[in-house]
């Protein structure tokens, strides 16, 4: 792998499902990206969601995004498949042991404020079932 490769977490939203097209195949084969899919879903309304890490050069990733956009896709660059609602979060820290990658953690030992690092989230959705305050939500 070259030194100029980067890894980006992306979320693709397909307003109309394109399940018949092997999009990820083209990301690997034509754009030379290493792909790690966290979560994919087709809703009963035939919308599609895909959250994944892509690793490659900035140029290759941009090329891949341009390709994906030809399917009328919305690209969320911050990869927010799972979001933490700051207003609903009480910062109790109950979620922390249930978060396998440690995306939720105490950010400040003095105040014990809970921080969510979405780039570390593997989209297992454990926090959504666990949070008593309903502070964690999924985009799909």
């Amino acid at each position, binding site marked *: 792998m070259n030194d100029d490769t980067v890894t980006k977490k992306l979320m693709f939203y397909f307003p109309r499902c394109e399940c018949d097209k092997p999009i990820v195949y083209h990301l690997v084969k034509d754009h030379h990206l290493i792909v790690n899919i966290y979560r994919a879903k087709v809703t009963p309304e035939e919308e599609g969601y895909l959250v994944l890490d892509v690793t490659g050069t900035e140029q290759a990733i941009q090329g891949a995004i341009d390709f994906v956009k030809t399917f009328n896709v919305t690209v969320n660059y911050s990869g927010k498949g799972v979001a933490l609602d700051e207003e609903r979060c009480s910062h109790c820290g109950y979620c922390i042991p249930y978060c396998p990658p440690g995306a939720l953690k105490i950010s400040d030992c003095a105040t014990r404020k*809970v921080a969510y690092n979405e780039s570390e989230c593997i989209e297992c959705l454990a926090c959504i079932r*666990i949070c*008593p*305050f309903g502070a964690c939500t999924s985009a799909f």
Partner: protein
Amino acid sequence: MKTYEQINDRIASGKAVVLTADEIMDYVDKKGLEAAAKEVDIVTTATFGPMCSSGCFLNFGHSKPRIRMSEAWIADVLVYTGLAAVDVYLGCTELRHGDPANMYPPGEFRYGGGHVIEDLVAGKTLQLFALSYGTDCYPLREIRTYFTIDDLNQAIMVNPRNCYQNYNVAINRSDRTIYTYMGRLDPHQKNGNYCSAGQLSPLLNDPYYETIGVGTRVWLAGAHGHVYAEGTQHAGGVGRTPDGVPTGGSGTLALTGDMKQMRKEFVRGVSFSGYGVSLALGIGIPIPILNEEVLRRTCVRDRDILAPVVDYGSDYPQNTGNVICHVNYEQLRTGQIQVHDETVEVGSLSSYYKALEVANLLADEIRRGEFLLAAPITPLRRDTKMKPLVKREPPR
């Protein structure tokens, strides 16, 4: 030595020296106990956590024609109507009508009494549906209407039990995942949960109830409420460390306050998967520094507070009274504890962050002269133990 009157005079003149229970230890270490006791007037303590023994009394006023509600629901959550005509009691653990509870375990328990209380304080419009058998003086048999907290004559919160002085650390040594009021506990003590603000918690800063008693004014979710009785399950006569810190659940407080004065961010409905619904509340209690001993006890640190580790897979439900071991809050705050040489990851159900926010808000109100202290009129008992419920044969 200071008196309540002297401290209240200093508050009223805007000269009171107030520190939080989070700040006082370092301050005393720096200044020395004697000098700090002369200088500091009040230490603010606080807690924010779920407390199932919470609810409220509401008065709706009278409709035309009048109704004596005999069954009623707010937002489809059943309220108790065995009171006067349009008085009701809403309990925070009551589920919304039709909630499948644990029929398909673990249930989600999305909405209940705690959420209704949160919505009321947030000023939301809610539905009231009430039925009646009808009387000559209260002829209306049914009413469906919509209201906000502003439409109510009174909305008085009551917490028959709150501010538990120390509490269990729950783990699960059974072979299956269990869902409890202490959260989800994975088998073979894979994780654990605790629930106390530790060194910020009110009764851990006044372990012998020298300043907190019936009549003490408290900051209840932003309202100026008070302690109206000892809390249910109050058991002051428990084992303590040499410094007086109970080594298990012990003292509790019964609190009340006007919900119309409360702030929505400190009144939060909660849902525990597989268990049920509850209410989390922010509470602040000022401790007047009457003398050096009172100050010394507010210097309790997380490392001085020992919590019992209890197996919720067997010992808790079977009420055996067994304690596996004790751990201190400094260890709990690291996120890991050792139980019989095994590392157990732990999380907190009580929010230290929110408790700190409450302690600071209360300290600011006192500094501005907006919150005066009330001396207790009756002390909390220090000699009581918890009684069990005994299953007896019918009397002959």
